[in-house]
């Protein structure tokens, strides 16, 4: 699984950080920071949920 983010669309809800803190963080303005673009398989479910519920559709998953 490969993760992409589109920070200019981020609305700083922090939902992704709550669900998958190993993969996502927020900068001082609250904008998403991607910590790990190739998360380990055990994080797959959390990353999938984060992508699904992001309120600005910022997170895109690319499945190989």
């Amino acid at each position: 699984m490969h993760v992409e983010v589109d920070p200019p669309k981020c609305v700083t809800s922090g939902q992704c950080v709550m669900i998958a803190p190993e993969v996502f963080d927020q900068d001082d303005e609250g904008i998403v920071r991607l910590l790990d673009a190739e998360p380990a398989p055990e994080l797959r479910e959390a990353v999938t949920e984060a992508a699904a519920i992001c309120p600005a559709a910022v997170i895109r998953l690319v499945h190989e």
Partner: protein
Amino acid sequence: MTARAAPRGVVVVGASAAGLTAAETLRREGFSGTITLVGGEVHLPYDRPPLSKQVLSGSWPPERTGLRQPGDIGALRLDLRLGTTATALDATARTVTLADGAVIVYDGLIIATGVRPRRLPMANSATGVHVLRTLDDALALRDRLGAGRRLVVVGAGFLGAEAAAVARSLGASVTLIEPAPVPLEHAVGAQVGAVLAEIHREHGVNLRTGTAVTGIITDAGRAVGVRQADGTEAAADDVLIAIGSQANTEWLEGSGLKLADGVVCDQYSAAAPGVYAAGDVARWHNPLFGTMMRIEHRTNAAEQGFAAARNLLRPEQARPFAPVPYFWSDQYDVKIQAYGYLPDHDESAVVDGDLEARRFLVAYRRGDFLTAVIAMSMHPKVIHPWRVMIANRVRWSSAVSAPLSA
């Protein structure tokens, strides 16, 4: 108990954030049957919060609101029915009838038909009277804003306040009329509402609170102003009606589903066996707060679409839908973020920053518990522990005295 057969066909009615997320979740969770996604608009699923922000200001082209890339939607292998609405549900025969006459049989149904703007009882067809819910609405209003134009906004909720802020930034003169004493009082309380009132006035908005609009003045079929309860008038080239919304449930009347300002659901977002509701249209029991709620936030649409799809596929492993609601609003250079359940709060207190500086965190109590916070221009790491406390059902007394790790 006999296990229910896995559904072969799921119909999702509503193709905005909740419906799309539900459809996507069904596929991600391994559902390989037919997914029919019905959308009343002709556009591919798009996002609504930018409509009163980036789309209205012109800083985003409309395409940027697309919720997914067209290829990603194609990969979901949907039976996509756009530009048509559902007109009837037969929950016994398990069929949905569409406006174009199609009758679709389902095993599972997700209702995500959202809300539509409330309107004033008068002059709705006059040219220059706007609502703001769809992309087409936003583009029509955007084309009317600019220097020298006069906009009257009826209703200072989040939508009206955001539109007023954008219109000012484009140079329009703006009158914002609200029956409550301060903007957003119902949602955020008087303290935070007063701060928002100041901000709008500083930016040149003619804010008239404590007064209702009683009529739209028209001339040859075109809106030219509004009349207020006290007899005063406000001249306008355009009028935006932003007085809240109503759930799109008419098509479900007579279906046997319980309707009460939304589709009534249990804590799993289920309205009946195999029938779920998600997003703005769903009124469900949120066990975290112990109350029925219907939430018109973008975040909830996705979260509930996700939860409803999972529970539909695996009812025997259903998880209660118990989110901490979240919304945000951008007005001028201010960002407001709110976590939790704000209606009917009993008390509020500034727990960090201060109102004067317009950098603050206000906590809200309902009963014995911390139930919500609102932050203006605060660092996310300050907000985070409060959100965790709301999710953990922390008592008010310990929440407001807790030492916080910043």
